């Protein structure tokens, strides 16, 4: 089972010819159980792409199949689709609106048609999973800190029990500690709950560390779709697209240029520490 995108095009309806084509012949398969990172500079089409996956935006042409089902088909149940493909927006805390945290999280599953009891059980489990403490349940969402709000908003999506979880820059504006907590939570959802993760990010360091595969977008097209090592090996091309490799990749390249026999395809600090220690320091 997977999400399959075939020749997807999306054009804005306004008549500015330069920026009209937001998505240009996108073909992509997102396999069940993978952790896919999507990178690209602002305006490259990342968010537009992911908003197609649960039917928030309607394609101009092409096809999107979720577990084999055409999401634009007449018989497609959109409500069911949106619980299967959960989308956490950038700044999800802007979507919190209920009087207290618990009601806010319950809104999604209730709206899906779950009974009150089921919705509450799901919501409780989702809040726990996201590490939201019990004593926050009846506080107003507006009183929480940035990191807490973000976890509550994520719980709201998780309570609908999605199989595919899309996160559009979930760590923007969080401190490094909060960033790590959210990313660890996402990676746990993948490992323990077997959720498929699609992470849109501006942090090369984060996708290098967490994603199994990276899709690079530029001007509405997919330019690379590969494992992190191979993607970041093309760092010169990435730079031309307004991106770059993680800092540690550059260190490895420079060490190699300086004549040290290190592996310059490395993309995370942990690997680099080990490699430098074994190849140089011993």
């Amino acid at each position: 089972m997977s999400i399959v995108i075939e020749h997807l095009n999306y054009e804005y309806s306004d008549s500015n010819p330069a920026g009209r084509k937001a998505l240009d012949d996108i073909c992509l398969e997102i396999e069940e159980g993978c952790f896919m990172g999507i990178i690209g500079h602002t305006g490259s089409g990342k968010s537009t792409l992911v908003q197609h996956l649960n039917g928030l935006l309607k394609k101009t042409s092409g096809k999107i199949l979720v577990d084999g089902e055409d999401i634009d088909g007449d018989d497609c149940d959109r409500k069911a689709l949106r619980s299967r493909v959960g989308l956490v927006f950038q700044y999800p805390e802007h979507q919190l609106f209920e009087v207290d945290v618990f009601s806010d999280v319950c809104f999604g599953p209730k709206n899906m048609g779950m009974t009150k009891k089921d919705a509450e059980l799901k919501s409780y489990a989702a809040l726990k999973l996201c590490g939201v403490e019990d004593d926050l349940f009846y506080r107003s969402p507006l009183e929480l800190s940035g990191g807490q709000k973000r976890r509550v908003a994520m719980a709201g999506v998780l309570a609908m029990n999605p199989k595919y979880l899309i996160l559009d820059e979930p760590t923007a504006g969080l401190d490094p500690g909060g960033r790590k907590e959210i990313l660890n939570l996402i990676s746990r959802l993948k490992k323990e709950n077997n959720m498929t993760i699609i992470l849109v990010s501006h942090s090369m360091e984060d996708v290098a560390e967490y994603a199994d595969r990276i899709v690079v977008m530029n001007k509405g097209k997919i330019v690379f779709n590969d494992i992190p090592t191979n993607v970041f090996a093309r760092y010169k091309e990435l730079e031309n697209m307004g991106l770059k490799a993680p800092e540690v990749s550059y260190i490895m390249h420079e060490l190699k240029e300086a004549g040290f026999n290190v592996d310059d395809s490395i993309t995370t600090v942990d690997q680099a520490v080990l490699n430098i220690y074994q190849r140089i320091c011993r």
Partner: protein
Amino acid sequence: MSFLKTKDLTFEYIRRDDEGNVESVVTAVDNVNLDVHEGQFIAILGHNGSGKSTLAKHINAILYPTEGAVFVDGMDTKDKEKLWDIRQRAGMVFQNPDNQIIGQVVEEDVGFGPENMGVPTAEIWSRVEESLRAVGMYEYRKNSPNRLSGGQKQRVAIAGVLAMHPKCIVLDEPTAMLDPNGRQEVIRAVRGLNEVEGITLILITHYMEEIVHAHRVFVMDKGRIVMDGTPREIFSQVDKLRELRLDVPQVTMLAHELRKKGVDIPEGILTRKEFISEIKKLYGKVY
């Protein structure tokens, strides 16, 4: 010369119920004493909720101290008559450029500040030009801000502040919403303003690599200043920073981890160049 001084600055968010009784008091800034000199590049770090933004809002009199005092260029921010002078001297740039760009055309947006201050028209245009040139956005002066990238928008916002001829710019997470390129554009632009024009910079950020060139770094926790030093002094304390939910640049972390394995590399490595030269010094002769 001292530009910004806070004296025992404390700020409390006080919540009241319908009858006006105090429900809760949160001390967001707790007894902070800062002294920032003209022309310095100051960085403020701290986790979400540590009080950084609350502190920053005191610098151009958006908030006033509950206790203590703030002096900007010698003026007490509580002095209502000096309000406009203070806001002109210390400009502010926020996280989301979309919230502070109002003009339909880039040059009009940049001209809004000086126009609002009553600057004569001819001078407004010369200020607009010099500000846009300083941030490298002059060729976009006739564009609509909507069509710009995040980094470009943020540079327009900075130009808008610059056109008021401030002595100091306070930037509250100006790069949080930008891609790597946009982040670099903004940081380069503001460092240029500091180095070339001598503008005092106060940069609040969660990106550790943006502050390695700062003259001085303050780290906040629970409203207090808990660390204070040069980037090297601050980033030498990896474990303490982690306790404060912060981080260090990747190159600093790499050196720190190697050091833990017994490699004789100093703490507080800040740049790739330093790292490579230390490794060469230690192991270069092997080749």
